[in-house]
């Protein structure tokens, strides 16, 4: 059966990267369409009328929105190999909990730190480090969050790693010093082609953020 799979995305989005890693892990061929979020395409507005955001997966003409929902959908449809979800319901609940935690906390806290100064900036930085420390604790001594296999929570979190250089530079700290176990997990993830071939270069991400900052400060 010839599936038609299209992904509406932007190269720098941590949330879009989750979907790209998931599709790569499953070996699914898809048509990638880079979106201009300052000038949203009719296709994006039609496929995600509620949020008008990326990523959107379009499978045989039907849209699926919200990155963690898309990753679960991919796992359920292409279920013949590389399962993302743990088999035990309790472990699945833990994986969903921490993906939800990362959704709620990481990007919002980064924004608090990004363009702020002084006390506000320091508070944002402290909170961001604390979030990653909590995620590191949740990993424990496992190889991956999924145990022996790379799973839903690994996919949910690994895209943030290409933003670490940006977080470190703006926050003046080193992830290696604050969360060494998490960084070891990042290295293990990068041994997988689905991750190393998908995630953009972290300096490229930083240059993008720097450019965004210039634009915002000139407004």
């Amino acid at each position, binding site marked *: 059966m010839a599936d038609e799979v299209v992904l509406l995305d932007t190269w720098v989005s941590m949330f879009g990267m989750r979907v790209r890693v998931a599709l790569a892990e499953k070996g699914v061929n898809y048509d990638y369409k880079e979106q201009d979020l300052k000038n949203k395409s009719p296709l994006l507005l039609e496929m995600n009328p*509620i949020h008008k955001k990326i990523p959107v997966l379009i*499978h045989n003409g*039907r849209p*699926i*929105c*919200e990155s963690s*929902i*898309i990753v*679960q*959908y991919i796992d*359920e*449809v292409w279920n013949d190999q590389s399962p993302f979800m743990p088999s035990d*319901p*309790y472990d*699945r*609940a833990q994986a*969903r*909990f921490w993906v*939800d*935690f990362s959704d709620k906390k990481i990007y919002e806290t980064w924004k608090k730190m990004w363009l702020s100064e002084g006390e506000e900036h320091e508070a944002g930085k402290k909170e961001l480090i604390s979030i990653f420390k*909590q995620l590191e604790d949740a990993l424990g001594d496992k190889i991956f969050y999924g145990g022996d296999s790379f799973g839903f929570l690994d996919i949910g979190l690994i895209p943030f790693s290409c933003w670490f250089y940006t977080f470190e530079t703006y926050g003046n700290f080193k992830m290696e010093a604050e969360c060494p176990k998490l960084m070891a997990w990042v290295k293990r993830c990068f041994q997988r082609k689905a991750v190393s071939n998908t995630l953009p270069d972290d300096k490229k991400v930083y240059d993008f953020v720097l450019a965004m900052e210039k634009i915002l400060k000139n407004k």
Partner: protein
Amino acid sequence: MAENDEVIMLDFWLSPYARRVQIALEEKGIKYEIKEEDLPNNKSTLLLQMNPVYKKVPVLIHNGKPICESLVVLEYIDEVWNHKSPSLLPSDPYHRAQARFWADYVDKKIYDNAMKFFKTEGEEKEDGKKGLIEGLKVMEEQVGGDRTYFGGDNIGLVDVILVPLFSWFYVYKFTNNLNFVSQESFPNLFAWAKKCTERDCVSKCTPKEQKVFEHFQQRNLLNSDQ
């Protein structure tokens, strides 16, 4: 699942998030015990131990192991007790994705804005009101006609997630400040909520309107617009 499962819910009677979990347990006929928390100022050691990340209710404790965040708990209940109907999620992956999408929308657009409206003042309260109305308008289109429930013919994830907030909306009968959320402005939603609360399992989990109103009054949440 063994019938000597120990299922405990850390609860607060007013929390619509906790009501979601209780409705799911009732609908599935699962035996459970409620431990009521004295919120907000006197959280139990058990709550802090079982939910160290957020320190909030609801927490489901199943055979000693905690599960937190109501949406996560609902999917857990649906998976563990998958032999008990109703199924909260459909079996088809596309429809599951749709149900999860709407559940997430209800949480972010409706609940977050409702909490802003009820718990803040001034501009933030106005933002909350605006967002809440927008969200309810979208949900109003999703139900009614031949769609009895958001889940279709039977109660499902989105129904269980949305309906508890209506026990807060019914307070509009006692005050003018909530007159933007009414049977007149959202006929489909109010008809749907009535259908849900007529189910024994849901009605058992719905706090009395008077009690909710008195609680809001005591905490000055129903003052006239500033």
